């Protein structure tokens, strides 16, 4: 195949990727979008296989078969509540692949049609692709550990921020040293293995150090950010291999992740930089406990059932607690029961509810909740005032009215206005404070009733009580 023909096929694949993302603008066109993505990938892979047809195709095909089988198996088996872990794990693979390709490129640039020894320009791009890839890999491994709750086994995976003195200074110093070795790599007269290896090793370490201080509830930002990095890594590799399709696909993914990070930060009213620097909530954690003893009104599932069956409208606010308890199916059943009794049921989703962007939407979709009952924050906030019962399931900071009070750490964060509902039912496992380490005045209001217990158990009990 001529180089021109290859480039044209790559162009077709790139257009497919753009159409794939465009499809996601609506649930109805989304599946078609995914097919475009698959088609683009098939074109890209087949075209590339045709280029190397004279080489050792058998190893490549075996590797593809093994990897593909693992991927397909995982995709079938994974629970929707485990989506954040899966996505983190997949980011790490892209990062690692980028690093391995870079190693291969340093070893034998000619295989990619790049002159040997590699020109400085390509080295610069390779450097960027490598360190971004390495950071993506180790950062995603840490994020995976945090999301999968492996903190018990290994402290670096703790979902609480891991902070130590001089952390940021150390990171900065390491980054500078890494760039120094990068420069040595550009200037090296030979292949530059030594500076390349040191640079990659530092990048792997940096990936770990960057992610450990970021706590569990900031995960939506982290995971979007790593999504973005994996794209930039692909684009960087594309630059050094002069491959326009890699550049296009990488940039699409990179900007997607960046936009998601921005949306998540905005939904928490926090600066991107402060999320990345991490450590949020570590200091204030104990402050809430010292406050004067306030009384909460707690009730049973039966009380909750009684309140809801007498309501005209109910808004359900799902949070991370729902995902942990895998209560989505029980919730759907509850909504069905209430609807049968003539109660209007809607769902309100905060952008950072859960551990990744859109986490709650997917869980509700899995439980077959019709998506026209599910509302984003800005669309439903004005409705709480005319709602009889707001049922908060395992959410805390996203409904904390302290966000309206100047001086509170979460002041200015957009929240769901459940506080305006006539009655508020809050399900939590205990009175422990949320991720931000803040007390939540909502829990002590006269119109609030707490229903303690595991979200799934409580919702199932309410359903039983409704019968």
């Amino acid at each position, binding site marked *: 195949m001529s180089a021109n023909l290859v480039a044209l096929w790559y162009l077709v694949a790139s257009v497919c990727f753009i159409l794939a*993302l465009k499809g996601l603008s609506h649930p109805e066109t989304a599946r078609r979008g*995914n097919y475009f993505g698959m088609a683009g990938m098939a074109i890209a892979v087949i075209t590339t296989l045709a280029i190397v047809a004279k080489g050792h195709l058998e190893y490549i095909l075996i590797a593809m078969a093994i990897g593909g089988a693992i991927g397909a198996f995982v995709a079938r088996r994974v629970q929707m509540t485990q989506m954040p872990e899966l996505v983190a794990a997949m980011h790490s693979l892209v990062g690692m692949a980028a690093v391995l390709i870079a190693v*291969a*490129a340093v070893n034998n640039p000619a295989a990619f049609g790049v002159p040997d020894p590699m020109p400085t320009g390509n080295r610069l791009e390779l450097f960027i692709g490598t360190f971004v890839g390495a950071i993506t890999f180790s950062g995603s491994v840490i994020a995976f550990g945090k999301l999968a709750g492996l903190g018990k086994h290994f402290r670096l995976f703790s979902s609480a921020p891991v902070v130590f003195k001089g952390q940021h200074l150390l990171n900065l110093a390491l980054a500078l040293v890494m760039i120094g070795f990068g420069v040595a790599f550009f200037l090296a007269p030979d292949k530059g293995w030594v500076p390349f290896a040191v640079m990659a090793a530092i990048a792997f370490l940096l990936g770990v150090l960057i992610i450990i201080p970021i706590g569990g509830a900031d995960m939506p930002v982290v995971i979007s950010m790593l999504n973005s990095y994996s*794209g930039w890594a692909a684009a960087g590799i594309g630059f050094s291999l002069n491959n326009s399709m890699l550049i296009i696909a990488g*940039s699409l993914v990179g900007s997607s992740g960046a936009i998601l990070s921005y949306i998540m930060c905005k939904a928490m009213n926090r600066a991107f930089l402060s999320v990345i620097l991490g450590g949020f909530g570590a200091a204030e954690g104990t402050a809430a406990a010292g406050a004067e003893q306030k009384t909460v009104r707690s009730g049973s599932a039966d009380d909750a059932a009684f309140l809801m069956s007498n309501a005209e409208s109910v808004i359900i606010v799902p949070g991370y607690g729902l995902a942990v308890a895998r209560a989505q199916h029980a919730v759907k059943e509850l909504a069905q029961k209430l609807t049968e009794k003539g109660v209007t049921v809607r769902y309100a989703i905060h952008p950072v509810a859960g551990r990744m962007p859109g986490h709650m939407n997917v869980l509700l979709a899995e439980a077959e909740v019709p998506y026209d009952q599910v509302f984003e924050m800005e669309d439903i906030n004005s409705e709480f005032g005319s709602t009889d019962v707001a049922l908060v399931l395992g959410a805390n900071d996203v409904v904390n009215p302290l966000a309206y009070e100047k001086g509170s750490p979460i002041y200015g964060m957009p929240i769901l206005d459940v506080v305006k509902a006539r009655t508020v039912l809050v399900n939590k496992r205990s009175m422990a404070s949320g991720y931000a380490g803040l007390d939540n005045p909502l829990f002590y209001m006269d119109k609030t009733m707490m229903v303690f217990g595991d979200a799934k158990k409580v919702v199932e009990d309410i359903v039983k009580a409704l019968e």
Partner: protein
Amino acid sequence: MTGSVDPTIINLIIFVLAVFVGYHVIWNVTPALHTPLMSLTNAISSVIIVGAILAAGASVLDMGSTMGVIAVALASVNVAGGFLVTQRMLEMFKKKQPKGEKREG
């Protein structure tokens, strides 16, 4: 103006334009589909498999092509896993759509 444009400059042009396209396309994605968006972009970023195949397909069998083969395997996990899990999620968003009903949005 003499000579031809450096490939790096051409790459840069492609890069900047692609970021623009990405920016505009992504802002149109409905928030409800942000999780499928992440898994789909994940699958798309595994197009890096192209680089891995080129590395693995070198006519000499050495460290570089071994790295390439491993990278092909890693990226393949993502290609298959990413698209299939996206498909699975999007099917869920479909099921609840009553037949024939059109939604504006």
